[in-house]
């Protein structure tokens, strides 16, 4: 009996190691499909990016915010979450989700070469990560290079990217998928918040496209957080998921028409240009609803 129990405890570890190394983040070894159902269930719980046999790609906070750089222009620091609020984030939910929010802010600030402003946001991330017990994963000694790299946008973006990646790996190894999911959700909402503030500008198709392109990321984050949904044990997370699901229902009205076309390859420059087309259609009333809901969610997590 004990041996059987030990084996059951051991299998998740093995499958986790297997999924981490054979599959990698976002990778899939086809043979995993053959695993008997009872073992498959265990596997689902071991990897952040593998839920219900679906494998997810969720962009990093820096990448998400960089996507918004062009459309969220000119740079507006009033869009950022005030670092003074950091003291009020006392629950692990608020701490996790705002690590993501400040991460997106850091990407936006850095991409706009406002490096001195980045320092205060970095301090906010450090404080939250200390309180959440993930500061060791962030490798703040690396982040302290920020001062020395002020002005070197690429270097700074790389440092932030690696810091968030280390944190994500740490949480995945520690099976704290809810915390990792909340960080990614915070980054997504903050990045969408940048975008919706520019949705009323003339010629806003680029803004609309950027918002519409986040549909898959939103779906994936909801699937990850849903596993931790409990109105009795995890109230804040559950209420947040409710808001995300409501937003998701608005996103479902977005129509994306994709048409494949053969790519063009410039062999001399080792460059392939994708010629496939994708048209995103959102009715003006829908984009208003989406914008309002994003603002509502953003207010709820940062207040």
């Amino acid at each position, binding site marked *: 009996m004990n041996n059987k129990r030990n084996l059951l405890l051991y*299998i998740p*570890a*093995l*499958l986790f*190691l*297997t999924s981490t*190394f*054979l*599959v*990698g*983040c*976002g*990778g*899939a*070894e*086809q*043979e*995993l499909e*053959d*695993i*008997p159902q009872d*073992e498959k269930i265990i596997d689902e719980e071991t990897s952040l990016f593998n839920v219900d046999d679906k*494998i997810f*790609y969720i*962009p*990093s906070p*820096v*990448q998400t915010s*960089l*996507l918004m*750089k*062009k459309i969220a222009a000119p740079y507006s620091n009033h869009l950022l979450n005030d670092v003074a609020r950091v003291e009020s984030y006392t629950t692990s939910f608020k701490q996790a989700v705002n690590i993501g929010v400040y991460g997106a802010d850091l990407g936006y600030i850095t991409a706009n070469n406002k490096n001195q402003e980045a320092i205060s946001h970095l301090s906010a991330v450090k404080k939250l990560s200390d309180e959440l017990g993930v500061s060791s994963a962030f490798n703040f000694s690396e982040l302290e290079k920020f001062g020395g790299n002020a002005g070197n946008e*690429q*270097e700074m*973006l*790389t440092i932030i*990217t*690696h810091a*968030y*990646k280390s944190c*994500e790996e740490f949480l995945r190894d520690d099976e704290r998928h809810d915390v990792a999911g909340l960080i990614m959700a915070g980054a997504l909402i903050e990045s969408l918040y940048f975008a919706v503030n520019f949705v009323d500008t003339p010629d806003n198709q680029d803004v609309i*496209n950027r918002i519409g*392109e986040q549909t*898959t*990321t939103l779906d994936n984050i909801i699937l990850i957080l849903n596993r931790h949904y409990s109105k009795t044990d995890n109230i804040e997370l559950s209420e947040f998921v409710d808001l995300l699901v409501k937003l998701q229902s608005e996103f479902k009205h977005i129509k994306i028409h*994709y048409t*494949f076309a053969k*790519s063009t*390859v410039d*062999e001399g*420059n*080792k*460059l*392939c*240009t*994708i*010629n*496939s*087309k*994708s048209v995103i259609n959102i009715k003006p009333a829908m984009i208003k609803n989406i914008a309002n809901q994003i603002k509502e969610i953003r207010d709820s997590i940062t207040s």
Partner: protein
Amino acid sequence: MKIKTVAVIIAGGLLIYNTGYSQCKTNVENIRRPFYDLELECAKTNSEPSFISDAKDYRALLSGNEGAEFIATFFSGNKYRICACTDIGSPLSFTISDHKGNVLFTNKDYENAPYWDLDFPVTIDCKISVSLPRETAEASGGAPAAEESAEEETPATETAEDEAGEEVAEEAASEISTKFVENTKVCAVLVIGYKQGK
């Protein structure tokens, strides 16, 4: 058969566990290194500082004609550099397909070039498949080249339809995996960076 497949995967997991994350080869006999080292080397050799890492791991242990698949979203307005490396210094094949299965690019058409840039004017959810070219499989001491070419010549639709044949092939692949798991698995990595277009 299915149980055997699971056993092979778990054996891989045990091996990885026992080697403490360091399962990729180096130039020094009996000295191993972690995937991360290989990714770093791959990026240094093939990428440029202007590309920012997408912060995802694309790692696989392969031998013979095994392959692995990853998923990634490529966002509009970005130029991506995809670098592909193995721990034995031999090339790695990669193919990028859209969510409908249409091939957008494959380095197989360009002598398995170690990197390629891709310009995405639209956002597309993609599948990235990696496999060992014949020379890499041979260099690793993996499956005989004849087996690899036999699989390449078999159309995917036929393979899917022929259940019995597939089982036999999987059984054979499992045997090969079991046989070579310790000595001939190749560490295969992709390193993907992006930068914003003008």
